[in-house]
């Protein structure tokens, strides 16, 4: 019962702040609502028993990525708001229509999954450690070692790319 109350509260906060992120005029307010949204997603991870991922969510998203967004909002000194410019070719209604099409598609997938439930997946090899963080770390350094290294290379390349792109002249 307590879990249900917590889920509905967190879900309402996530969706409400997500709507505010998308609809707010002021970009800085939008970024701050994004922080709150990420924090509630982290709370949802705790509810699901993924404590390590909740910590990563707070550290990387709410701590790192959002600071990056705030810096860019600060550096991009807007003299006129982007929404002021009216493009006659812009079709906002078409955008809403396409989003509704995605919603219908997701609904169709959900109904299909409800009608034909998937077969139960076989249990994977037992992990010889207990505790959420230990299990994630074990998998990262055994079965998923190569993807882990590729991800670190991706981050290095992205870091160099961001420096090259943001530099005034090379």
């Amino acid at each position, binding site marked *: 019962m307590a*879990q249900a109350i917590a889920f509905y509260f967190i879900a309402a906060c996530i969706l409400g702040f997500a709507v505010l992120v*998308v609809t707010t005029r002021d970009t800085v307010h939008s970024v701050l609502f994004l922080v709150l949204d990420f924090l509630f997603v982290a709370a949802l991870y705790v509810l699901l028993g993924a404590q390590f*991922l909740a910590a*990563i969510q707070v550290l990387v998203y709410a701590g*790192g990525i959002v600071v990056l967004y705030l810096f860019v909002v600060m550096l991009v000194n807007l003299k006129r708001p*982007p929404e002021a410019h009216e493009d006659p070719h812009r079709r906002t209604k078409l955008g809403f229509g396409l989003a509704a099409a995605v919603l219908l598609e997701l609904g169709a997938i959900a109904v299909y999954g409800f009608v034909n439930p998937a077969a139960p997946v076989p249990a994977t090899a037992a992990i010889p450690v207990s505790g959420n963080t230990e299990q994630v770390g074990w998998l990262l350094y055994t079965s998923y070692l190569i993807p882990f290294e590729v991800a670190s290379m*991706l981050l290095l390349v*992205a870091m160099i790319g961001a420096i090259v792109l943001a530099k005034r002249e090379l």
Partner: protein
Amino acid sequence: MITPVHYMLLSAALFIIGVVGVLVRKNIIIIFMSIELILNAVNINLVAFSAQLQNVVGQVFAVFVIAVAAAEAAVGLGIILAFYRNKETINIDEMNLMRS
């Protein structure tokens, strides 16, 4: 009782909000934030199934998604800065340099 269906519905709703943001807004920073919302929706699904199936692999994949999101944010914001320096705008309707 909270089933994985509840988490999938929450994830789908968050995904749709992100899609609406990408398709409707003109401020490219807000479009990037909508993409982060979409990636968060994917992560919620992964973690929900990880909890349902008692299998930690879903959380490992969510860690990879977060790493890719961080890389995407860094490169994307670098592109926004470079574009703003040249054109003094972050409105995607004015980003038509490649249009013939």
